């Protein structure tokens, strides 16, 4: 097992290296000059040239690339061109905000999605099955922008239950310690604000969970249907076991592997792909951070931001692979 993890981690190196190269080349292929963007519309040509030289942008691309790589190996993610802050320092609050939201969303997606899939498979072709699968189809194709604004309108404006945007009640701010506000409120003993922080998570959490939830539900259903037809399930039922235990204990265990793969992939997507949700709910996450960096041609932020997201994505998939072995003893890593 340890061997396996070690090998997988080693494989990470070429993957991430390749990634840095692709991202590096793509962002330089798009037009738009960071020096010009930084200096604004009024800048003179000389000022732009001087800044390009200062930022090293006038070097050939391979020199720029190897300088960037050299920095990376020393743990230096570069400095934002726009804010002049080191990316490594700047990125943490955004990452924490994204993590918190993504975990919350995946929690909703898994709890609802897996159960809806199981029940749909259990009572195949029932009204529940049909409704759930139609809803899942709608969910997969839901425009997040519209969903987000509708959520705000119904739950914040009409019903007044939940806040529209942000992470906290800015009139009672939380001092960011870890950056995970749920954890921060608990650590600082501010239990009055714990509820507020959770309430701020609900609407963006649902918006973000919608698509993964639908995908997970559909995957769970089809995987369960396959397992439910197998002999050992019939045996278990013949032995007179309660249907609930047959489904949730015996069938689920075998059906969960492909579902887990989907959950892992979705989790990775949530981390980087939450730009729309983060924009509508003004969530200060990493998706918006990188997106805004693209608008400003902030090369170091784009490069390092995508690198971090990719790293997390790969790590999550590694964890999923390890989980396979824990859940299914037939899968062995040596």
């Amino acid at each position, binding site marked *: 097992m340890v061997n396996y993890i070690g090998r997988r981690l080693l494989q990470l190196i070429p993957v991430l290296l390749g990634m840095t190269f692709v991202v590096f080349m793509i962002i330089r292929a*798009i*037009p*738009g*000059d960071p*020096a*010009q*963007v*930084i*200096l*604004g*519309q*009024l*800048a*003179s040509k*000389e*000022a732009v040239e*001087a*800044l390009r030289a200062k930022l090293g942008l006038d070097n050939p691309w391979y020199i720029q690339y190897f300088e960037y790589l050299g920095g990376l190996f020393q743990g230096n993610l570069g400095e934002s061109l*726009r*804010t*002049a802050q080191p990316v490594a320092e*700047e990125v943490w*609050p*955004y990452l924490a*905000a994204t993590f918190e939201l993504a975990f919350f969303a995946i929690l909703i997606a898994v*709890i609802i999605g897996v159960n809806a899939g199981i029940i749909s498979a259990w009572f195949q072709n029932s009204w529940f099955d049909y409704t759930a699968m139609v809803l899942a189809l709608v969910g997969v194709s839901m425009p997040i922008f519209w969903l*987000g*604004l509708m959520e*705000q309108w119904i739950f*914040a*404006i009409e019903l*007044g*239950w939940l*806040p*529209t*945007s*942000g*992470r906290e009640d*800015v*009139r009672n*701010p939380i*001092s*960011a310690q870890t950056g995970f506000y749920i954890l921060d409120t608990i650590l600082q003993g501010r239990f009055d604000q*714990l*509820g*507020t922080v*959770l*309430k701020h998570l*609900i609407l963006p959490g649902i918006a973000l969970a919608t698509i993964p939830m639908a995908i997970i539900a559909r995957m769970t259903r089809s995987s369960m249907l396959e397992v439910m037809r197998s002999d050992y399930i019939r045996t278990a039922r013949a032995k007179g076991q309660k249907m609930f235990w047959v489904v949730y204990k015996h069938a689920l265990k075998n059906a969960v592997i492909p579902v887990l793969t989907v959950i892992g992939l979705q989790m990775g997507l949530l981390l980087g792909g939450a730009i729309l949700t983060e*924009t*509508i*709910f*003004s969530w*200060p996450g990493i998706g*918006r*951070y990188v997106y*805004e960096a693209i*608008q*400003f*041609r902030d090369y170091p932020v784009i490069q390092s931001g995508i690198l971090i997201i990719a790293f997390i994505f790969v790590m999550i998939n590694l964890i999923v692979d390890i989980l396979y072995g824990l859940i299914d003893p037939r899968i062995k890593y040596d």
Partner: protein
Amino acid sequence: MRNKKIWSFLLFFGLILMLFLAACSSENENSEGNGEDGNTEGNSESSGEPKVLIFGRGGDSVNLDPITVTDGESFKVTQNVFETLVNFGEQDTTINPGLAKEWTVSEDGLTYTFMLEEGVKFHDGTDFNAEAVVANFERWSAGTADKYYYYKSMFGGFGDEEGHVIESVTADDEFTVTFKLKRPQAPFLKNIAMSPFGIASPTAFEAAGDSFGDNPVGTGPFKFVEWKRNDSITIEKFEDYWQEGLPKLDRVVFRAIPDNSARLNALLTGEIDLADGVNPSDSSSIEGDAALQLFERPSMNVGYLGLTNTRPPFDNKLVRQAMNHAIDKQAIVDAFFEGRAEVAVNPMPPSISGYNDQIEGYDYNPEKAKELLAEAGLADGFEMELWAMPVPRPYMPDGMKVAEVMQKNLADVGITAEIVSFEWATYLEKARNGEADAFMLGWTGDNGDADNFLYVLLDGDNIGSNNYSYYDSEELHELLIAAQSEVDEAKRNELYMQAQEIIHEDAPWVPLAHSTPLLAGKAELTGFLPHPTGSDKLHNVDFE
């Protein structure tokens, strides 16, 4: 064994779920209570309640050291943390006393002497005096264009450079500062009134160096408290502020809410008290809501369709004039600005000194346009690309739809326009390189001076930077350069009036509109006066 794992896992989830539900239900009771008294959450200022203003806006600041930035979202905050030697008027760009209570200008326009307010303190306790002013200007004039962009742009350079207008800044006594200029600069006072030139505490910026923006220290009515990037910036009342009784608020929180509709939603629920960047299409619903009020920011901008003057057929003046006659500007203003804009005639708005109101705009006249095209030898029309702005801006709320109207207008006179658009930074770069036939763009003034529109946008010197249309007229250039150092206001205005006539005749653009950007706030908000530059002073804002 494995069962245990699953059970403990489920138990864990169950606990989290319970915690979550418990927290929600207890909070719901609270918010219902608040809901009943009409969303006044937070500013029920009975006795000891602090008065907090939550200002929702489209983006976060870049840096809070004002001299290092160019973006309006940074100045919105620093305008309240720092003060300048002279101030703009409450809602215009006239010059009023600021940290300098009075000043004199020598006959030749080369020496400015400022008498400073006494008893002013920076937030860190440092005294404000003539030495502090000198230290600030020394810091700036030792910079470079990528660090202190606006210094270079307004004062022409740094240190000993030829273009640098300021020769010296000296402290005559504790509260008198003298500026000596190398040559007269007509808008000098307007320049030093700009937000980037807010006076900072020398003790603080010497200690902090390049990271001064993380903890800005000025003399303003509010002092910096906290910055959660991309989320919120908090400033609070400075107890030792030199103007009695100000500011009226205890705290201001600037929140970044990028989506216009989401920002308005936040205002409707009372999460924010004031919202910047309201869509013109939402204005009537806000005016119909008794709990809200609509604010109009006085216009200091221009939205235009630029014609790249070096690309055929736009190298022909007749074609450019034909374009001006072909486009129905009034219809565009009515449809997409909801009437909250006026049709532009000149490249600068009428509120700016030197505006030529004798000029009559090109009327909407397709027949005339066709005649001009025929005269130019293009009776059968031509094909062109029409670049539509990909982002909304106050001077252009919906580029794509406006482009569609123009496309139709042009088709009516036989011109086939294909609408194209790019991502914003790409759009600007390609337009700057002269790759567009016709492109939509706009400009919001920095200091309310005619030079900041005409020279910046249309002088040959600025081709490759802000003169996107590649319009280059020697006659215009001479007028604009003469106006830069003309200290006599009347003579200077005369020069700008002539300049506008030349521009009108040559028609390098189709000027479209001077818009009135909109804001919305709670009805009980008082004392908020939106400033045309976009940087609002909040010291007089209060809740009824």
